[in-house]
């Protein structure tokens, strides 16, 4: 009896992890799908997926970072700045997000200096 209960428990665990992969509405799935399409250069689709992920999990720093990168690739720099700041606010010690933000800040400062579009990055 106990043995069968163990098998049922293990089956449920495995099945649970498999089914979550197929649910397009979860933040994790949206994030993964967004990254897959981003790697193919489909940045608009990626941005949409990351926005969906944020709608499901607003405190996910990785989703905010990814959305910032996608917005940057689409040329929406002002919104990218807001998303990078949000990602850093949620995960201030994440070295990858910090590195992304530093590189973006360098680019955005020179971009705004030449176009005068917005105030420089603080």
């Amino acid at each position, binding site marked *: 009896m*106990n*043995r069968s*209960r*163990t098998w049922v*428990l*293990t089956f449920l*665990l495995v099945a649970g992890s498999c089914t979550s992969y197929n649910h397009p509405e979860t933040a*994790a799935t949206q*994030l*993964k799908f967004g*990254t897959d399409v*981003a*790697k193919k250069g489909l*940045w608009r689709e990626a941005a949409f997926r990351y926005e969906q992920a944020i709608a499901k999990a607003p405190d996910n720093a*990785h*989703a905010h*970072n*990814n959305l910032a*990168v996608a917005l*940057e*690739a689409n*040329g929406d720099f002002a919104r990218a700045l807001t998303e990078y700041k949000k990602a850093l606010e949620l995960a201030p010690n994440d070295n*990858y*997000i910090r*590195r*992304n933000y530093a*590189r*973006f800040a360098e*680019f955005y400062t*020179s*971009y705004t200096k*030449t*176009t005068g579009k917005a105030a420089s990055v603080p």
Partner: protein
Amino acid sequence: MFRRARAAAFALGLFAAAAAAFASPEQVKLRLPLKAKLPLRGNERIALAPFILVTDAEKARDKRLQNVDLQGEFHRFLKKQLEKKTKFEVVEAPPDVKLPTQNLTELARASEFWAAVGAQTNSEIVVSGSLEFKVEDRSGYKTEEYTSPIDGRTYYRQVYVEQTGFLFDIVFLVLDGRTGEKLLQDEFKDFRQTSSRKADELQGLFENLFSLENQILNTFVARDREAERYIFKD
């Protein structure tokens, strides 16, 4: 039995947490737009005026620089790049155009002179500035670490390294051909080093120029540049 199942579930949870913690992000490449530094229409007539040659004083001492017609090579390069990658009409200022001064600050302020060049060449934009090209023999003894295969200890030893350095420093002056007023002043610098003593100076010059090409063209037209970012999968 229940205890074993709980232990298995706990182990699975731990594994998932560890996998999430060590999940490294993916590096992706983006192309970021660089807007032109000057708000031009894109079809203006541009006159290339002479540049001040900062290396002139050193030419007498350095025989290798005597072989390089810096003014001519740079003009040729700039004209070719502008004609190939933009829609500007590029003309050379007539050979009788002589710079009124060899001082860059004064040159930038010589609005009457530039307006005259603009009128003479019928150009809306005039480009001038200064050029500095240096070939440096950087050969010499350098200290390096050396681990002896006999006793396994690390020593420092002096080795002779042959190197040549090429330095190119361009100051760009972009002037309004109608008023002669300065529109923009910008500096581009590049340093290249080769691992041979008698590297060819013309080859060095063009290595410098091609690495500055994007920056130079970005003065007049929009360009893009590659950037790397990290994105996460989970």
